[in-house]
């Protein structure tokens, strides 16, 4: 699938190259704890120098996947390959993989400096080289002043940065980051994100990162995998995931979206039509990749709030892709306003409008009868 909407950060798409060889490969990997299946027959390819994100609800198996790659858990079934070599039987301390732990796992009896230097010393690096590297890492995470402190003398966010620095210090081929920036404030988080991206380009490392911050995943990733109950729901570039979700689950999980339930009423190639009681019209849109397209099937139309136009003027009678409703609520968020519109069948549809001027009075207000329209192809019809 090569429908990426617009150029993203840089041209890098080895996964589209039929000759591309994956660097990390999960091959039908299953992990069971007792009879609980944490990772379910999962296959995943990650390419060298890729910045790959795992997104998914709590408990869906993200950490388990990373722990198997780092060597702390053995797959119950399937195998994991790194650079073509099966990792089975290789202990964690011999894998060219470093992991930043979700719980940080800093050594409480060592200073920040010693924590960062630990892996370097383990590799037998010269002490002046270690010092240079440690200083560089401290600069990266902005903790120069805290080098001599012990972990318990640091704030949560500072500890997280030490953990990050410690895992990056060895410049491993593969870096696994389990929620690396969750405890940082927004500004620091954004700065660190960009520094991580720079570092990745500079050092050519492969990053596998778990995050609950979708914006972060969008910003840093080459590709994103959305997981659910131990399986991958969708893999794609940030734009693909956002604009072309394959299932309701992914659509709903990533970002804010309106889902309008209905039934498929007509099929013409990849174009579907959707009708539903009480929405007052027919919706035409492209079908999601890999979905069934049969008339009469339950389906839903998915559209992002920022793509919905809201207006009090009625469009020409009989036009498609129009919804009619009443303003139920208006939320003012500073940069945008969110209008919640209640359709005749009770469905609430959100539309966001950028606040381009400073006027406080809006032309549309509570209980106004409004029409919602959108550009062609702004939405997508999901049958799964």
């Amino acid at each position, binding site marked *: 699938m090569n429908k990426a909407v617009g150029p993203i950060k840089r041209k890098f798409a080895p996964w589209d190259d039929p000759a591309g060889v994956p660097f990390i490969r999960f091959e039908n990997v299953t992990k069971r704890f007792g009879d609980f299946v944490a990772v379910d027959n999962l296959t995943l390819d990650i390419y060298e120098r890729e910045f790959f994100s795992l997104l998914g609800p709590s408990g869906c198996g993200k950490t388990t996947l990373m722990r198997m790659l780092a*060597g702390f858990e053995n797959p119950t079934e399937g195998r994991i390959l790194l650079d073509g070599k099966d990792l089975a039987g290789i202990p964690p*301390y011999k894998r060219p993989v470093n992991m930043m*732990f979700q719980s940080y*796992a*800093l*050594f409480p009896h060592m200073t920040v400096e010693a924590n960062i230097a630990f*892996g370097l010393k383990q590799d037998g690096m010269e002490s002046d080289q270690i010092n240079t590297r440690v200083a560089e890492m401290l600069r990266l995470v902005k903790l120069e002043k805290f080098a001599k402190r012990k972990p318990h003398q640091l704030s949560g966010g500072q500890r997280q940065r030490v953990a990050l620095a410690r*895992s990056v210090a*060895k410049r491993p081929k593969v870096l696994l980051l389990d929620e690396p920036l969750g405890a940082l404030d927004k500004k620091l988080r954004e700065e660190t994100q960009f520094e991580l991206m720079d570092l990745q380009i500079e050092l050519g490392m492969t990053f596998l990162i778990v995050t609950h911050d979708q914006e972060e995943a969008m910003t840093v990733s080459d590709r994103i995998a959305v997981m659910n109950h131990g399986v991958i729901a969708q893999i794609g570039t940030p734009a693909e995931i956002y604009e072309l979700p394959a299932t309701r689950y992914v659509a709903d999980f990533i970002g804010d979206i309106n889902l309008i339930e209905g039934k498929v009423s007509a099929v013409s190639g990849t174009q579907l039509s959707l009708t539903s009681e009480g929405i007052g019209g027919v919706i035409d849109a492209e079908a999601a990749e890999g979905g069934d397209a049969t008339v009469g099937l339950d389906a839903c139309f998915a559209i992002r709030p920022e793509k919905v136009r809201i207006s009090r003027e009625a469009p020409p009678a009989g036009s498609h892709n129009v919804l009619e409703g009443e303003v139920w609520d208006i939320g003012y968020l500073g940069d945008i306003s969110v209008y919640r519109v209640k359709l005749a069948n009770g469905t609430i549809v959100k539309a966001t409008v950028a606040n381009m001027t400073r006027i406080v009075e809006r032309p549309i207000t509570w209980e106004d009868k409004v029409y919602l329209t959108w550009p062609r192809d702004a939405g997508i019809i999901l049958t799964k």
Partner: protein
Amino acid sequence: MADTKDPTGSSKAKWLVVAVPYLWSAIFFLAPFFIIVKISLSQTAIAMPPYMPQFKDLATAWDAVRQFSLDNYVFLTEDPLYIAAYLSSLRIALISTLLLLAVGYPIAYGMARAPKGVRNVLVMLVILPFWTSFLIRVYAWIGILKPEGLLTMLLQALHIFGPDQQLKIFNTETAVFIGIVYSYLPFMVLPLYAALEKMDHTLLEAAADLGCPPLQAFWKITFPLSLPGVVAGCFLCFIPIVGEFVIPDLLGGSGTLMIGKTLWAEFFNNRDWPVSSAVAVVLLIILVVPIVIFQNQQKKL
């Protein structure tokens, strides 16, 4: 009103909480200690109690105080027996403590690594010997270690020993070490276990992740983090072992010199209360001074 009352009430309660341990120490440690110090400054006498001067009433108290002297302490330094006994006690206590650490650490480590449900059972098993009398357990060791005892019989049955060969460790220091290690093991294991059990296992994973093989990870992570437990266990064992009397008396025979035995002999055989008090006071100083220095060092860290 209630608002202003409450804090004062709770601060009173707080003082009480702080005062209880001090009061306890004052009544059950400081007061007897001063009595011992007083006796150690007196002279033996054929009387009951067998020393003088005695405090009869306030009027003669000052006279009594003027008769105090440090003679007993001087006597301790003049007789090489006492110095030898102190040194021997310290040596035996030191070796025993190291043996206890060597035996106790693997046990505590195994307990801390055991599955959660089993751990409490293991702790129970460590404490279990306390349910029988300490004396009975030491007597039992006599039955095991004596020349014609159980251990000799076992070794003979296994043909490691010939039929005439006998174990010659009863009434030696070896028997004392065995008895001490056996008796004090829980005091070493429990603090070690407490320290090891609360260690976060992911630290070892982090070490492995950074390229550290398990054995190195033990010395770089596990052992340093268990140090508070090591220190606590060593103090809990070392201090009472220095003054140990029963085990060397029952298992060590006459060849084992320990200050506890010397003290007992002074007190009961010679009925020399002042000298035995002086022995006790010096023992206390020998033990307290290094502990205080150590604790100050710890605070500075």
